[in-house]
């Protein structure tokens, strides 16, 4: 937690804002993957991060307010990446969603949040009327 030496790589914060429209999700996932690929994540982890970010954007489009925008913030450090995805919607009782395990029949509903939880190391939803819905998720660089 000491400040990094001046010559080390910056712990960069990259912000992105896209219209909450299906067409732009591809831009968000490519940008997030590009940010993550500046750190030594495995190819597998990069794909996980890309998909999780895309699922979060898709949810913001499908469950957030119409004609809105989605704000995505990526912060990288030596440990990994933290991605936050926010919309201006009122959210939903997200605390309990998609926590269950897969039954014998496999999973066919609420796959989005389920995938996010499966692919990332930590996932936290906050949602209130004033600030909208925010999903903060992290992925650690594995060594």
């Amino acid at each position: 937690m000491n400040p990094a030496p001046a010559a080390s790589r910056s712990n960069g914060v990259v912000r992105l804002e896209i219209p909450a429209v299906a067409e732009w999700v591809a831009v968000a996932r490519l940008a997030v993957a590009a940010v993550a690929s500046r750190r030594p994540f495995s190819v597998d982890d990069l794909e996980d991060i890309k998909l999780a970010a895309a699922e979060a954007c898709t949810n913001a489009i499908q469950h957030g307010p119409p004609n809105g925008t989605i704000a995505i913030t990526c912060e990288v450090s030596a440990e990994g990446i933290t991605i936050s995805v926010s919309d201006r919607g009122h959210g939903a009782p997200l605390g309990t969603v998609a926590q269950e395990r897969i039954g014998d029949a496999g999973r066919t509903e609420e796959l989005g949040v389920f995938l996010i939880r499966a692919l990332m190391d930590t996932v936290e939803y906050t949602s209130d009327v004033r600030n909208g819905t925010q999903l903060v998720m992290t992925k650690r660089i594995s060594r």
Partner: protein
Amino acid sequence: MDIKVNVRESEGDAYVVDLAGEIDVYTSPKVKDAITELIDREHYNLVINLEKVRYIDSTGLGVLIGGLKRVREHGGSVNLVCTNPQIKKIFDITGLVKIFGIFDDEQSAMKALA
């Protein structure tokens, strides 16, 4: 960042849907349309070839699941061809491997339809 969809007839009333590209919230309606059209024309034995698919999200999975549910009502099935390890992993994580037949090549997927 786009999807190519190609539908072709195969042996014994089976149809193959070739997909190439990325299946996401923007492109999956195109995939859905192709599958829906086949089912509306009463073709219930489908092979969906994902060999050239580089990316699939939950909306893409939802389209495949929706197709499977509909053909099953008519005693049909959907078999997938999938070799990309990242995409196989998604079917594993979600447990969808238990629902779909997933094969390494079209021939096996076709044979298993019968």
